C-alpha cells in the first residue's frame, strides 16, 4: 500500500516535471526565435548582435550604431513581439474552444470572428467607411475589424443562448455565418481597385507586417485578459469535457460557462485579428501538440498552448520573412504547415478521447 502510494507520488512528480520542462522548452524556443526573427531581414544584423542591441536598449546604454538600433528596436522587434503575443492569444483561444465545443478541429475562428474582421477591414480599405467617422487609415481598419468581428460572434452567442445548442451546432452555425460574411467581402473585393484589393487579400491571409509599438500594448492587454479569464475557467472546462449532464450534476452551469468562454474568445480573437488579419491553424495546432505531450488537463493545457502558440507563430514568421524575394504573409506559412498537421489529427481521431 505504502509502496503504491510512493510510486503514485513519484508518477505525479514526473507528470508535473514534464509539464514544467515542456513550458520552459516552449519559452526558450520563442526567445531563440525572437533573436532569429530580429536578425532576419534585408539589413544584415548578427544573431547575438541583435540580443546585444535589445539588452543595451533595455539597460539604457547609448546605441553604438544608430542605424542598427533603429532597425532592431523600431522595425523588427515590434513584429517579433507581436508574433509572440498573437501566437499566445490564438493558442489559448484554440485550447479553450476545443475543450468547450468538445471538437478537436475547432479553433478561435470557428465562431466566424475572422470573416467578420475581414469584412470590417474590407469596408474600411475599399469603401473608406469607418464606424467611428473621424478615423482614417490604419486606425479605421482596426476599429472596423474589431466591431465587425463581434457581429458573427454575437450571432453565435445569441443562437446558443436561445436555442438549445449542441457543440456541433455552434461550429456549423459559425461556419454558416462565415460563409455569409465571406460572400459579402467577395462582393466588396470585386469592386475594389487593384491596390486596395491586394491590401484586403493580404489581410484575409493574415500578416504581421503592420506591427508597431503603438499596437502592441492593446494586443497584449487583450491577450492577458483572455488568458486570465480562460485560466480561471480551466477547471470548469475540464468538467465541461465530460458532457453537459455530468457538468450540471457537478454544479457547473454548462450553458453559462460556454457563454462566458464564447464571449471571452470572441473579444480575444477580435482584438488579435483586427491587427493582423486571419492567421489560421495556430490556434488549432498548438493545443494539439500540447495534448500529445501533456494530456487534456485544461489547467496545464491552456498556459502550455499559449507558450507553444507563441513559439510556433514566431518561427513561422521567421520562415515567412525569408521566403520569396520580399517575404510572404505569415498566414500562408501557417496554412501550409498547419494543413497537413490538421489532416493527421483528423486521421488520429479514432482514439476514444474525442468520440
Amino acid at each position, binding site marked *: 500500500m505504502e509502496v503504491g502510494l510512493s510510486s503514485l507520488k513519484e508518477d505525479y512528480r514526473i507528470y508535473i516535471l514534464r509539464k514544467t520542462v515542456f513550458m520552459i522548452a516552449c519559452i526558450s524556443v520563442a526567445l531563440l526565435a525572437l533573436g532569429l526573427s530580429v536578425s532576419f531581414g534585408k539589413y544584415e544584423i548578427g544573431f547575438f548582435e541583435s540580443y546585444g542591441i535589445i539588452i543595451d536598449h533595455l539597460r539604457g546604454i547609448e546605441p553604438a550604431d544608430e542605424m542598427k538600433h533603429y532597425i532592431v528596436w523600431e522595425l523588427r522587434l515590434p513584429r517579433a513581439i507581436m508574433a509572440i503575443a498573437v501566437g499566445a492569444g490564438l493558442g489559448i483561444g484554440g485550447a479553450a474552444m476545443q475543450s468547450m465545443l468538445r*471538437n478537436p*478541429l*475547432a479553433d478561435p475562428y*470557428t465562431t466566424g470572428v475572422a470573416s467578420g474582421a475581414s469584412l470590417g477591414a474590407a469596408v474600411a480599405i475599399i469603401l473608406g467607411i469607418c464606424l467611428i467617422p473621424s478615423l482614417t487609415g490604419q486606425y479605421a481598419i482596426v476599429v472596423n475589424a474589431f466591431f465587425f468581428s463581434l457581429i458573427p460572434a454575437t450571432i453565435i452567442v445569441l*443562437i446558443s443562448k436561445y*436555442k438549445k445548442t*449542441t457543440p*456541433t*451546432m455552434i*461550429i*456549423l*452555425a459559425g*461556419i*454558416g*455565418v462565415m*460563409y*455569409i460574411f*465571406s*460572400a459579402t467581402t*467577395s*462582393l466588396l*473585393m*470585386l469592386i475594389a481597385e*487593384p491596390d486596395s*484589393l*491586394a491590401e484586403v*487579400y*493580404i489581410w484575409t*491571409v493574415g500578416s504581421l507586417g503592420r506591427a508597431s509599438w503603438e499596437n502592441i500594448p492593446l494586443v497584449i492587454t487583450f491577450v492577458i485578459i483572455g488568458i486570465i479569464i480562460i485560466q480561471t475557467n480551466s477547471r470548469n472546462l475540464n468538467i465541461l469535457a465530460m458532457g453537459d449532464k455530468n457538468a450540471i450534476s457537478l454544479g457547473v452551469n454548462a450553458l453559462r460557462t460556454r457563454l462566458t468562454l464564447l464571449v471571452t474568445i470572441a473579444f480575444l480573437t477580435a482584438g488579435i485579428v483586427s491587427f493582423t488579419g486571419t492567421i*489560421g*491553424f495556430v490556434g*488549432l495546432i498548438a493545443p494539439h501538440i500540447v495534448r500529445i505531450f501533456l494530456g487534456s488537463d485544461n489547467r496545464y493545457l491552456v498556459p502550455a498552448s499559449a507558450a507553444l502558440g507563441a513559439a510556433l507563430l514566431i518561427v513561422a514568421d521567421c520562415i515567412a520573412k525569408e521566403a*520569396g*524575394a*520580399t517575404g*510572404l*504573409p505569415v*498566414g*500562408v506559412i501557417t*496554412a*501550409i504547415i*498547419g*494543413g*497537413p498537421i*490538421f*489532416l493527421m489529427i*483528423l*486521421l488520429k*481521431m*479514432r482514439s476514444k478521447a474525442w*468520440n
Partner: protein
Amino acid sequence: MSGDAGSSEFSSEDMKEQYHSYILRKILFIILCFILVIILGGYALTIGGREIAHLDVYRILWEHLNGAEYPRGTSEWWDDYIVWEIRLPRVLMAIIAGISLSVCGVAMQSMLKNPLADPYTTGMASGAVFGAVVAIVLGMSFTTAMGMYGIVGNAFIGGLIPALVIITISKFVRTTPATLILAGIALSYMFNALKTLLLITTNEENIQEAYIWQIGSVQDAVWADIPLMFAMTVIGSIFLLSTSRQLNLLTLGDDSARSLGLDASQFRTVCLILLSLMIASIVSFTGIIGFVGLVAPHMVRMILGADNRFITPASMALGATLILAADVVGRTIVAPGELPVGIIMSFIGAPIFLYLIIRQKKGYGEVY
C-alpha cells in the same frame, strides 16, 4: 366478407390514386424546372449590347438549328452570330455547371453519408482550382497533356487530393458533419495558401488574378469550352443516375452494402474518380461556384420529400435553374456591370446552409 374485400379494394384504389398524384407532383416539378430553364435561358440570351427580343431569340436558335444561312454582314447574320456564338455558350455553361455540380452534391451526400457534403464544402473545388492555377501560372502540367486538357488534367489531380483525404477520413473515422466541413475548410485554406504562394512569388501583381480565379463566373464562356464539360457531365450523370440504387445502399453502411452484394469500397473509388473528373471539367472553366451541390438537393428534399429516386434528376433540373437564375440576376441587378454567379450563389447558399443547421426538421435529411 365481401364487404371487407370491397373496402380493401377501395382503399387500394385510393392508395394507387395517392401514389399517382405523388409521382405526378415529382414529374411536374422536373417539368417546371425545365420550363424555367428555357424561359431564363431565353432571357439570358437577350442580355447584351444588341437589342434582341425574348421571343426572337427562340426563332433565331430554331432557324440556326435548321441550318439557316444569312449573307455576311446583314442584320439577320449579326443577330444569329451574337445569339449563337457569343451569348449561347454562357447560357449552356451555366446549365451544364448547374447540372454537374448538383449531381456531384447528391452523390457526395450519399457517399459520405453526410447531408452537408458538396464539392465546395469538402474542399474539392479549391483543390481543382489550385491544380488549374498551377497549369496556368507555371505552365506546368501534372499529366502529359497540354493546353486546355493540361489545365483540366491538373484540376482533376488537384481535386482528387481533397477527395481522397475526405474519403480516407470518412472511412476510418466516424465523421460528423461538423468534422467533415471543418476538414473541407482546412483543405481549402491550404490550397488557397499554396495558390497565393504561387501567384505572389511569380508576379506580385497577380493577386487580382488569384482572386478572380477564386470566384466562379461563366462570363468568359466560349464554344470551345463546352464539349469537354458537356461530355463529362453526360457520362457522370448517366453513371450516377443508373447507379442510384448502389448509392442508396452506400448510405446503409459498408457492411450492409456488402451483404446486399455491393463492393462498397470499389464502387466508392469509381464514384470518386468520376466525381473528380466532373468537378475538374467544370471548375477549370468557371472557377469555384459554391453551394449548388448543397442547396439544390436540400431544396428538392424540402419540396418533394426524401425519395432518392427523384432527388438526383430533380436536383439536376433545379441546379441548372439555380445557376442560370443566379447568372441572370448577377447581370441585371448592377447592369451594365455584372456580378459573378459565384457570389450570387454564395448569397443564396450561405443563408440556406445556416438555416439547415439552425432549424432542422426530420425528413429533410437530418443535418446531424
